[in-house]
């Protein structure tokens, strides 16, 4: 359990929100999109300085020891700005997995670099099917004397091209293990995968006898835990994003006139907006309750993570789709931000498990209850 207080969480969220307001507005977003890296390293450093990157790191290792609740709160802010960064890979999944390691030297070395903003880590977990479960891992590792050699493919790897290390999840005799690999090591081949969502950077990684450093003590349970944190982070991002595009749309309904009336005075628009509000609030509730249940270690945690996994993604998809329609022609232009939210929303339909997969898992949880 975390030692962070409710007041500290709010203070941190507010600082992060201010930082993003100043440094991650639409102009900055479009600038980041146009770079090869796909994010702003200077902003990354400021996030480190503010402690954002260490939110899940134990105070013992220089972190602030936050929990899923704080993570979700911060991600709502990030989502509302469509923040581009390797945050989930590095500060959520890699932090969580490294934190689970029993090798204290490695742990201390890696976490201190993450906390300082000096190291980003990409997560190579799922094969080409994009399952993001341990069953979807396609890489195998075998011990060769003192070292480990890795073979196989990982796809959908976020921000791999700029990562200092790649954290590879691999099978060792049907057990899940984690390894750190240097991107420039022999036997490591990266190829960029062009994405439809310009805020997303994906690569495929082919490992052919590449040497990896075992992250001792990390097993399938730790990976499931880390992936659930990633899903909560994504759900929070989606809740923040869907709220934001909704607010943009309501604002447009109030300020756009057609036939001498605000378009928000037309019942068709009003009724669409009311239905969208239900989706927006449901996404927020799902993300927040999943985070809370997870932070408290509640029995319901997995159920709520799966619920958030499809409810937030679907709400985001539906509300952004309606938002474009309600804006009309203006949102059909690249210069209007609506389509950026729409693309990010569509990304969320697949990232870390599809909506259909989460829906099925949710029912499995309910059956077991």
């Amino acid at each position: 359990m975390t030692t962070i207080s409710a007041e500290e969480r709010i203070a941190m969220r507010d600082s992060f929100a201010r930082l993003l307001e100043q440094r991650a507005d639409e102009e900055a977003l479009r600038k980041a999109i146009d770079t090869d890296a796909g994010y702003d390293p200077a902003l990354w450093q400021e996030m480190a300085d503010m402690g954002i990157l260490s939110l899940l790191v134990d105070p013992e290792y220089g972190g602030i020891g936050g929990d899923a609740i704080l993570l979700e709160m911060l991600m709502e802010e990030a989502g509302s700005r469509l923040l581009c960064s390797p945050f989930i890979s590095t500060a959520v999944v890699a932090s969580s997995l490294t934190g689970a390691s029993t090798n204290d030297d490695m742990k201390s070395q890696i976490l201190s670099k993450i906390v300082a903003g000096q190291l980003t880590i990409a997560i190579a977990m799922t094969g080409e099917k994009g399952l993001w479960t341990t069953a979807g891992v396609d890489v195998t590792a075998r011990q060769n004397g003192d070292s480990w050699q890795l073979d196989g493919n990982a796809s959908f790897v976020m921000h791999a091209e700029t990562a200092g290390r790649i954290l590879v999840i691999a099978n060792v005799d049907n057990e899940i293990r984690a390894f750190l690999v240097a991107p420039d090591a022999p036997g490591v081949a990266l190829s960029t995968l062009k994405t439809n969502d310009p805020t997303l950077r994906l690569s495929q990684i082919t490992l052919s006898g590449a040497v990896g450093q075992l992250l001792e003590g990390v097993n399938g349970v730790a990976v499931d835990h880390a992936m659930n944190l990633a899903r909560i982070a994504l759900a929070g991002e989606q809740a923040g994003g869907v709220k934001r595009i909704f607010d943009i749309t309501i604002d447009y309904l109030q300020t756009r006139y057609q036939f001498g009336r605000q378009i928000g005075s037309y019942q068709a628009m009003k009724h669409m907006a009311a239905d969208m509000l239900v989706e927006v609030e449901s996404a927020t509730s799902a993300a927040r309750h999943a985070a809370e249940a997870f932070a408290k270690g509640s029995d319901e945690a997995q159920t709520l993570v799966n619920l958030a996994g499809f409810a937030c993604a679907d709400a985001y998809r539906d509300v952004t789709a309606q938002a474009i329609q309600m804006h009309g022609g203006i949102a059909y232009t690249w210069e209007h931000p609506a389509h950026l939210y729409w693309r990010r929303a569509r990304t969320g339909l697949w990232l870390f498990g599809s909506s259909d997969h989460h829906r099925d898992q949710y029912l499995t949880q309910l059956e077991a209850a």
Partner: protein
Amino acid sequence: MASNPKEISNEDVAIELEAWLDAHWDSEKRCEKGKDKLDTKSWLTTLLEAGYAVPTWSSDWYGRDYNTKQARIIENILKSRNVIGRSQDRFNLGAVTVYRMGSPELKQELLPKMLTGAFSCLLYSEPNAGSDLAGVRTKAEYVPGKDGGEYVVTGQKIWTSNANEATYGMLIARTDWDVSKHSGITFFIFPMKQDGVDIRPINQITGESEFNEIFINEARIPARYIVGELNGGWKVLQTALAYERLIMGEGATERQGKDKSKVHPLVGLARRHEKLNDPVLRQKIAQAVAYRHLNALNMRRAKAEIIENGSSSLMSLGKLAMSRVQHGEARVAGEILGPAGLFDGEAFPDSADMNFDSAKSYMHSIGGGSDQIQRNIISERILGLPREMEVDRNMPFRDVKSG
């Protein structure tokens, strides 16, 4: 009769009530101590006189001047001992309306009756005024006479529940046809037990008859039974509706915020009919359950916000969201049952439930403000979008089109 709430601690509120109950209420027999069986009216009078029926009301009017916190303590104790007649300041809509908006004379005359078993039904809706309550065409005409005279009422009301059991009706009727629709309405407490009141059950598509049509033909109301001002009924109605919404909203927030029994009925139904492995149905079942779950989570947030800030805009989403839940669950139940859904009756309980629920869902999506009205309310009151234009708002009611 009661102590000043500022002078009494919450502990003492509980201790005082427990002592009073020990002296007056037999929890086992559920009647007054020393009696064989419950005499409802007599017990309600005892409770009322002790100030425990309406503890938040003024001590001048049967109450104890308690605050909400103290009233909840009392409610919980009375509930735990199965005491009847509790929390009428929360749930007795007729009495609350008279207490809040009636003249002292009216309160004097009606509250003792209303709080001791003479309860009230709602006479707002009319066939021609469904969502448009201000379109009432039931007319009330003044006839001079003793005690300030009386009103003669003729018209038709609809969707009234418990009409046969009610002593009073909370009635809106038109008293001036030459002013705008909202300006000519008066709010009455209408005596139900009289000639000229014909109560007919409505046959609903569910097979039930929860509601009635009320045909009123030259029925009488003492003029002193007006609540609020003559022709000021619209304002009184708004306040009465706000109480109703509050009561229903709180109930809904509690119900919807509560998780259902561990296994959702649809999961049980699918299991019984061996459909839990059908991948198409699994998606539909999960989504239907999720909508209920999400609404429960919204209502939990609403409750937390109400505790924090005294109100929550989330509460207004519940009714609309529940429409989708109820229609959706009934539909998925139908898909689980397959062709067996064609059947009905006692021999096919799952089919009968599914078919009943399918019809009953309309009670939710139409009754008490249809989904369309809810969307208007949400978009206007929560999102601040412009109000729907009301073309008849300022014309004399005589000229208003209706049908």
